[in-house]
């Protein structure tokens, strides 16, 4: 194999990384796949589903909900009001930012996404989140 041919994938990777870093929230296949999956679920649940909304996601994030556990009434309780800022767990451990612009690896691991929505929706809302809510949330975080 000629050296240039060997370098080609590396160069492509480098370009890809630069593009990923330059355009947060875009050009991340894993995240797009997660969103596409959520969109399909949302459509299955509601035929009238017409795409995710960053605004609905913002409201979900900022609202103080009733029905969850008393110590965690809102997402912002731990993640702070600014999704680009670092948050803190109830015992003081740092939570990396939720906004994709500040933390490009967010919403790229389907298992992690499922785990944290399952846990935190129950802690904050006292119920599981719908596929639409999850998609709205991720869309909001991609817009920040």
């Amino acid at each position, binding site marked *: 194999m000629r050296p240039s041919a060997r370098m080609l994938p590396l160069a492509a990777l480098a370009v890809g990384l630069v593009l990923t870093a330059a355009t947060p929230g875009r050009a991340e296949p894993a995240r797009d796949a997660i969103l596409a999956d959520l969109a399909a679920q949302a459509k299955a649940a509601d035929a009238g589903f017409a795409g995710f909304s960053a605004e609905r996601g913002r409201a979900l994030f900022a609202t103080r909900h009733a029905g969850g*556990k*008393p*110590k*965690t009434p809102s997402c912002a309780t731990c993640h702070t009001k600014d999704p680009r800022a670092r948050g*803190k*767990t*109830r*015992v*003081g*451990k740092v939570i990396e930012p939720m906004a994709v612009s500040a933390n490009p690896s967010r919403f790229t691991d389907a298992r992690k996404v499922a*785990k944290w929505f*399952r*846990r*935190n929706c*129950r*802690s904050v809302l006292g119920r599981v989140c719908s596929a639409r809510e999850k998609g709205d949330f991720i869309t909001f975080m991609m817009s920040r």
Partner: protein
Amino acid sequence: MARSAAVKLQRAIRFASPRAKSDEDLGARDDRPGANEVSEREVKVWDRPVRLFHWSLVALVAVGAATGYSAPEWWMGWHAAAGYGLVLLLVFRVVWGFFGSEYARLASFAHGPRAIAGHLRGLVLLRPPHYLGHNPTGAVMIFALIAVVFALVVSGLLVLGGEEHQGPLAALASFDLGAAAKAAHGPLTVLLLAMIGLHVAGVAVESLLGRENLVRAMITGDKRLPPGTPRPRPRAARPGAAAVALGVFALVAGGTLVGLARLPIPDPAALALDETYATECGDCHAPFHPSLLPAASWAGMMAHLDDHFGEDASLDPETTRAIAAYLATNASEFWDSEAANRFRVVSTAAPWRITATPYWVAKHAGIAAARFTAPPVLSKANCAACHRDAASGRFDDQEIVPPGTKTAGEPKTGA
């Protein structure tokens, strides 16, 4: 031949010199210039090693008492250092008790019951018989003091080895043995302080009745010879023999220490934290060492992850099972560290909460509640905010550094 000639020459010089009163106090001879220019009726009683021993003992007992009674936990290293110093002093004193000069020798003040009774009778009549060295009553106290200090360092080493798993007995002494030794260590210190009080009182009484400042005698080494008392013929010190004895002891002790240091210590720090456990639990809080709770508590906690101290911390069943198994096999039952032993006794109301265990509550009772919630601690669950070795599960006293404090209690005492 050459040697005996030199000795003869030395004697000739002594007799010729006005400083040399006699060669009888040869053993107690102090080599500082002018040190032997004492009045005609004063003789050297306490040789320099005895005096150095006495005042070093005073200093180390003071350090031990101060750090033991009132210093914060993280000064434990200094307390142990004082203990090690006392061990060395005791060893030296016993050796010097065989090879030191006349009045340093244990046999010279090992008086029989008749002498003790006679001295006590004299005391009651305020006319105790005169002794140049320790009087029989005082000698009993000297032996008792040595015995109690010995018992104190032995019990202290057992506490250090058993409870803290530090020091030479770290591998041998169990936590329970350490706890038993601790139960003796405290009362022994009270006994020692009481005996020191009696010893000082005895010195005061003998000083008054004998019209001689015995404290000064323990500083200069000189004591007055009452009129009409024949000049004693004290035996000289044998520093060479003492050095050999100390050398042999050092070899035996050193070898023993090397052997002890090779024994495996049941140390929770040796456990590598399971990766799944560390990442899954470590996402929200520093992963607590499995040795900090009994298996039953871990099992209960893992069965109720959906309500984990007020939060949903549920995991998929496979991960939950893996972590539960890891915790069950490394729970406090399998460790003999202090933390494992202490936190094994859980709160009946909150058996999963380490910070609710009676020991945790008692140990942190003096800390204002606000200190736990304010930065940089933020939570009682944040052990590492003050315990530098929290992750290891050891929780050594010397590793406590409350925020705002500069240093911990160095030095750390081995093992």
